[in-house]
């Protein structure tokens, strides 16, 4: 494999169980850099597990997970700082303000100085900026969580149901932000229940069922651009 041709995310025969529940069964998935994969499937079909494994927060019981060629669990900073993950939880400290949370993560991920204001702007977080996260509404908290996940300008973006709780305006902002990130060369995998917000932006649809891939289609309205 030539060094610049690693797939952004690669799952090879990955199996993962949580206790008696088998979340993923010998899953094979290969995501090219620059794609936007919409991951769908009913509850409990393994979407969140895929994202956690790609983010390096879990270890597969069997099989390999590679993100840009590296194992995300043991990857060097060159990779670690390039992955952004949003799980079901916000990842925000409830008793700190939005600004304090973002500044903390900004410093931890060594983001440049303008990153926090940019993200605040993109997700319209100016108003709640100095309020503790605990006091925020569901939608606002979700926007703050998205800001946290995307703050360090990751080029591998893993989002678990990012549109939850967002109103129409916020949905449009998020879609625009994701489109911008995508056109900057990032790879996005988003677990979604409702595909309508991303219909024009996504390049691939992967549907999971019982821990395996049930359906895998490129965006039907898109133009295929090959090598």
């Amino acid at each position, binding site marked *: 494999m030539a060094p610049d041709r690693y797939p952004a995310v690669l799952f090879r025969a990955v199996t993962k*169980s*949580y*206790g*008696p529940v*088998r979340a993923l*069964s010998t899953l094979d998935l290969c995501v090219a850099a620059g794609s936007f994969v919409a991951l769908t499937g009913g509850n409990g079909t393994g979407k969140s597990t895929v994202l956690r494994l790609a983010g390096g927060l879990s270890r597969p*019981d069997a099989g390999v997970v590679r993100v840009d060629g590296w194992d995300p669990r043991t990857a060097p900073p060159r990779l670690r700082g390039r992955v952004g993950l949003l799980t079901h939880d916000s990842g925000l400290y409830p008793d700190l303000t939005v600004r304090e949370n973002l500044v903390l993560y900004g410093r931890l991920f060594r983001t440049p100085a303008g990153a926090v204001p940019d993200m605040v702007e993109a997700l319209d977080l100016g108003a709640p900026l100095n309020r503790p996260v605990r006091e925020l509404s569901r939608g606002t908290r979700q926007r703050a969580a998205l800001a946290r996940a995307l703050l360090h300008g990751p080029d591998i973006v893993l989002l678990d149901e990012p549109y939850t709780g967002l109103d129409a305006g916020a949905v449009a902002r998020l879609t625009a932000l994701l489109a911008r990130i995508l056109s900057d060369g990032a790879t996005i995998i988003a677990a979604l229940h409702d595909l309508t917000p991303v219909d024009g932006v996504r390049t691939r649809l992967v549907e999971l*069922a*019982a*821990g*395996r891939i049930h359906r895998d289609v490129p965006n039907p309205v898109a133009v295929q651009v090959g090598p």
Partner: protein
Amino acid sequence: MAGTETLAAKRFAPAGLLRWRRPLGLAAAAGMAALAVTALLLVAPDAVQGPPQRIFYIHVPSAWVGFLALAVVFVASVRYLVTGDPRHDDLASASAGLGVLFTTGVLLTGPLWARPVWGAYWVWDPRLTSFFVLWLVYLSYLALRRQVTDPVRRARYSAVLGVLGFLDVPIVYMSVNWWRGMHPEQVVITADGPRMPAAMLATLLLGLAAFTLFYLYLLAIRLGLARARRLAWATDATAADMEGTR
């Protein structure tokens, strides 16, 4: 289907220690019987301590085996943390339960011996107290195992406790020893060699052998159970998995 039955039979077939369980069981039974006869009838009681001293032949072997069981937990825990192979976790959990069993034996026979000899059931003697703490550590090990349902995490968490608990043992012993000290002078092994009369020493060694065989027998059975349980769990998961793809 015939194929899966053979497969199932193969997966559950006894392996390793488990294959030896019948000979171990017989040997253990013979050893314990011999010990009972020797300790109760054949060997002469200690001149100073009298008949209660015979508990020594159960107490010391229990302590030896209890400690051995816990050492096995330690080694298995380390190997699990290094390799992630669940068979090491089977061994650790099998041995931990036995460690609690034999250590309980130590804690029961100790006071029974202490009362007639020292006049009180519990005297905070360093060795007995160390065993008490060890017993507590391994009870918390078992409690921890019951609290986690996911097999991989259960194995990992209990392995960490298994390692830390065992490394703690010499520290526990030193702390209790400096805090109190009243165990009868080391009778068995000294710089000049064993100081016991030959008959007592022989009986003690018989006891050690019998208890060790008994431990290995119980370990074989528990190991088989743990392994069967783990494989059944995995088989169930696979069957459910096949269900889902139909």
